[in-house]
């Protein structure tokens, strides 16, 4: 094998993931406007809620809730705008049909998008938590770091699995991806309890909202960050179990929908082609 021989299998998959994640990672570094748009602006919304809680004389942990919620919003926005709607943009730009004929396949492209999006977003989320916590002097007591990281990791897998699912669905449903993405903004901010404990919604509304992995992830992480003071929606173990089930379900569903989307694209010709 000479050194220019293309790899196949797992090595090609890894190279393709790295290749597709590159524009996302390098893009954040190259265009610094995200510091303002993705950190300062979301922080303003978060700060507004902080002052609401402060005016109401709510316990200090609520300030921490809100900052956690603000950081989590970054992930949801990334999943909606840069995952779910991405195929739409790629179709418009002509990338989608190229992605469909490269040998690594669409799943590798999506994994790369997810990885790149995650890396970029985690930096934004850390920036929001750090600035918000410094501004309002919030202290966290993480009692079980490994469990905290496990909850976060499982939630991220589920969340990006949902993003991949939506990427196919958005393409199948219609052409105006930004309307779809907008549709999933405010309702999810509300239902997932980004700025309040989801328990306040009641059991059944909370369970419905739990279809979005961030709902239970936020509640579980709050239990770990504010042990003993946070009113849990469900026991931590149960939330972790449901999150795991959601992650697996979304990956399976995403795979099914991707195949369906690819098949329809080839049969109908209207999904991948620009008319």
């Amino acid at each position: 094998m000479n050194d220019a021989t293309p790899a196949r299998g797992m090595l090609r998959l890894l190279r393709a993931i790295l290749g597709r994640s590159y524009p996302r990672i390098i893009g954040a570094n190259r265009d610094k406007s995200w510091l303002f748009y993705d950190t300062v602006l979301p922080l303003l919304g978060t700060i507004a809620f902080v002052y609401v809680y402060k005016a109401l004389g709510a316990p200090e942990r609520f300030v921490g809730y809100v900052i956690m919620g603000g950081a989590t919003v970054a992930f949801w926005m990334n999943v909606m705008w840069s995952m779910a709607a991405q195929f739409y943009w790629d179709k418009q730009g002509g990338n989608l049909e190229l992605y469909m004929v490269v040998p690594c396949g669409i799943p590798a492209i999506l994994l790369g998008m997810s990885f790149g999006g995650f890396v970029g977003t985690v930096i934004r989320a850390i920036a929001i938590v750090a600035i918000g916590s410094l501004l309002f002097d919030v202290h966290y007591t993480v009692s079980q770091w490994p469990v905290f990281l496990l909850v976060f990791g499982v939630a991220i897998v589920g969340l990006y699995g949902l993003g991949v699912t939506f990427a196919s669905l958005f393409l199948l449903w219609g052409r105006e991806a930004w309307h779809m993405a907008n549709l999933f903004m405010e309702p999810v901010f509300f239902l997932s309890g980004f700025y309040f404990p989801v328990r306040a919604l009641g059991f059944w509304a909370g369970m419905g909202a739990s279809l979005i992995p961030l709902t239970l992830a936020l509640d579980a992480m709050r239990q770990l960050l504010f042990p003993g003071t946070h009113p849990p929606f469900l026991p931590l173990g149960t939330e972790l179990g449901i999150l795991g089930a959601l992650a697996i379900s979304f990956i399976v569903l995403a795979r099914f929908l991707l195949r369906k989307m690819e098949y329809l694209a080839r049969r109908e010709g209207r999904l991948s082609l620009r008319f």
Partner: protein
Amino acid sequence: MTVPAIETKELVREYRMKRSPQNPSGAPVVALDGVTLDVPQGEMFGLLGPNGAGKTTLIKVLVTLLLPTAGAARVLGLDVVGQVQQIRERISMVSGGEHSGYGILTVREQLWMFSQFYGLPSKPALARIDELLKVVGLYEERNRRTSALSTGMRQKMNLVRGLLSDPEVLFLDEPTVGLDVTAARDIRAYIKEWIRMKPGRTILLTTHYMHEAEELCDRVAIIHKGRIIAGDAPAALKLRATGGTYFLLTTETLDGISLAGLPGVQRADTRALDGRMELRLHLAEDGAIAGVVKVLADSNRRIFSLQKIEPTLEEVFVQLVGQRLEEADERKAGP
């Protein structure tokens, strides 16, 4: 025996349509209507036709982006329906007016990204990118963001992208569309160079530029309304044009001189033109023109002009389709 690079048999592709005022019955649009093609490996094959003739649809079927409605298509002996992955390993596609990739990346980064989708190791991939960028004259722009490239530069970059994986079959869908004369000439020059450097590689090129097909292709098929209506080497196709090659000669009035009976003169049509006579001479072979010139000179007739007129692919197209290619395009794009 090597398998053909491209082989289609009675290939049909229909698009389902919604009911509309233009199509009240919702009848499907037939983009390919029984296309049969055979392109051997190592050939540069051109598909010539107006917009909407089915050129792009044929390419989309062959690169596995679209399923055929009926018939069969194989690339390098592999079935486009059942052996999709194997085909994708060995082909590449470049379309005209393509805006693929991401504007925030530089030319070199963009090409590296695509090389990773083929599993190329980074170091040799970057070396190949640099080498190809030098060949197409884009090396100096390698660190420029792709969003800042001109249309011509972008298309050169797209061509490099298509060649990165060293494909066995390269599909070029109107690669010079929208480019200025110089950029289009550069692209054509590089395509010719690539096929020369890589004997055995096959190119399927779609175009609606006659001169492009004539300049680049070993063989050309004319496609119209989803059907291949003629296919041959450009020179052989031109021979099919009614009238073929002829000589156009302008002289003084003939006043009873007959040229029709001269040896080698098959037909001599005359037309009065501002006191002069224009002769359209169809000859059995070019040398027969000497006899015509001698008769005119012996009769003291001055010769004002003499031209050998060869038919063009455009004329072949007009005779086969009944209209010029541009007219067919306009009709397709009309209200």
